């Protein structure tokens, strides 16, 4: 077996593209919070990146991709990256050999961005020590098993559920985790009493640009090939994003609001989330529908969250959680064998639809429940939330001793 240089080159480049998504989330979230918390919000994403970078190499990769234990998790056979080297290896479900270590690094940047998305649920009130503990436990006990279920030879893949680039693993898991955490730690002081407005919208737009850009690597790189499938994934990723952006804008505009820039980019992210599991399985026309439905759906869910007085502050649940759930179901509906070898509901394959729904709802329940338990334990012991005074002064000063 020889390393395929084309596939290797593209996965190397894709890894760098996906890396920028974690600071992209930091910029996106940092701009959405008030001025006194910008540095903290941005820093949480860098912290997520650093924490998972170490955890992944020591045992995270092995839990996700090591030898299967009961379909649930990998064992520690690859802990410390033992048995993984520079030589060629073929990733399950793909055909071109790339260096084993490259796949480790490619998967590492997915795990980091998932954790960065979770920080939405802690926005403007996260206690740093509690967050670090929660982050390590979450990535180990929630992310790693989910990655194993889908990509590491776990039960979800065995059932036939398909997830091209991690709609279930990255987006459902992080979105529902953010919701669970927000429920445990409670609303920000003043939420619902006075308006809490974004501190820096241009920063949000820059973050969204980096996310859209990085997503090309996220989805297209997941082909683990430099071929037609990778190209198709790239194209549908873009059309879904565009469709989501336009639909969110139009729906919010007709709903009596203004066509806000935040609406446009939120819609783009919703479209990107929804196309993630479907990127290697659907046609461009289907991707326009998938992205558009995501734009309208996530907007509606966001309004529902606000109406219910839920302070899942930066809408990871509405956009990533619910957008990811829609994407997983949509993959079961729109998959077409001429693209990625699988047919979905509209091409007469009910089985695929059922398998995808099962995989997605299991991930929803697992991510929500386990995160809820982890957050409760940490919140009751060392605490996940800063004191009232620290929150009032702002986390930049109280947690980092810095200001913008």
């Amino acid at each position, binding site marked *: 077996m020889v390393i395929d240089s084309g596939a290797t080159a593209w996965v190397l480049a894709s890894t760098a593209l996906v890396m920028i998504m974690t600071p992209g989330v930091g910029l996106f979230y940092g701009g959405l919070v008030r001025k006194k918390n910008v540095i903290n919000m941005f820093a949480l994403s860098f912290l997520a990146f650093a924490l998972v970078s170490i955890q992944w190499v020591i045992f995270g990769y092995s839990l996700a991709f090591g030898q299967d234990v009961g379909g649930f998790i990998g064992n520690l056979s690859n802990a410390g990256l033992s048995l993984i080297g520079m030589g060629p290896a073929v990733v399950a479900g793909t055909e071109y050999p790339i260096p084993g270590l490259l796949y480790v690094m490619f998967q590492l940047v997915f795990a980091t961005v998932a954790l960065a998305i979770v920080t939405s649920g802690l926005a403007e009130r996260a206690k740093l020590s509690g967050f670090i503990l929660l982050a390590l436990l979450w990535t180990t006990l929630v992310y790693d098993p989910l990655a194993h279920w889908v990509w590491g030879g776990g039960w979800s893949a065995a059932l036939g559920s398909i997830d091209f680039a991690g709609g279930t693993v990255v987006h459902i898991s992080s979105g529902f985790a953010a919701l669970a955490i927000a429920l445990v730690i409670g609303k920000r002081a*003043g939420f619902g009493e*006075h308006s809490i407005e974004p501190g820096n919208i241009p920063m949000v737009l820059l973050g969204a640009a980096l996310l859209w850009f990085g997503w090309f690597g996220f989805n297209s790189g997941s082909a683990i090939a430099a071929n037609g499938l990778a190209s198709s994934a790239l194209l549908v990723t873009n059309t879904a994003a565009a469709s989501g952006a336009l639909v969110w804008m139009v729906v919010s505009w007709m709903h009596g609001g203004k066509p806000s820039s935040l609406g446009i980019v939120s819609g783009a992210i919703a479209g990107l989330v929804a196309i993630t599991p479907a990127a290697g399985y659907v046609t461009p026309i289907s991707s326009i529908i998938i992205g558009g439905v995501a734009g309208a759906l996530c907007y509606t869910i966001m309004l529902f969250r606000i109406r219910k007085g839920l302070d899942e502050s930066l809408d990871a649940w509405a956009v990533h959680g619910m957008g990811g759930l829609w994407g997983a179901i949509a993959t079961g509906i729109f998959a077409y064998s001429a693209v990625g070898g699988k047919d979905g509901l509209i091409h007469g394959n009910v089985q695929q639809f059922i398998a995808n729904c099962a995989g997605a709802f299991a991930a929803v329940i697992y991510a929500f429940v386990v995160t809820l338990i982890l957050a409760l334990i940490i919140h009751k012991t060392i605490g996940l939330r800063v004191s009232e*005074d620290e929150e*009032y*002064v702002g986390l930049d000063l*109280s947690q980092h*001793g810095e200001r913008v």
Partner: protein
Amino acid sequence: MKLIKAIIKPERFEKVKKSLEDNNIFGMTVTEVKGRGDQKGITLQYRGGTMVVDLIPKIEIDIVVTDSESDKVVNLICEAARTGKIGDGRIFVLPVERSIKVRTGEELI
């Protein structure tokens, strides 16, 4: 005429503005300021020691009103800005010597 200079918590600004609007007080100049009062800022306690954030962000509202309106406006601001916690702010009332409209040169009384 009086100049009312109110320094309040930023999160109460919208409520104060709404309350003034409802009572037909529209003109105002608003500045983001920082300051401290008797409390000398906020002291955060850590295991390793303390950290004092001595200047807290506030909103300053300047409003010029007739003498007869002055008490009413002060009361409106007090009611809307009060949270009952330390740091709710201060209101100063100053005499105004002259007030001139720039566009017309008209002297307002």
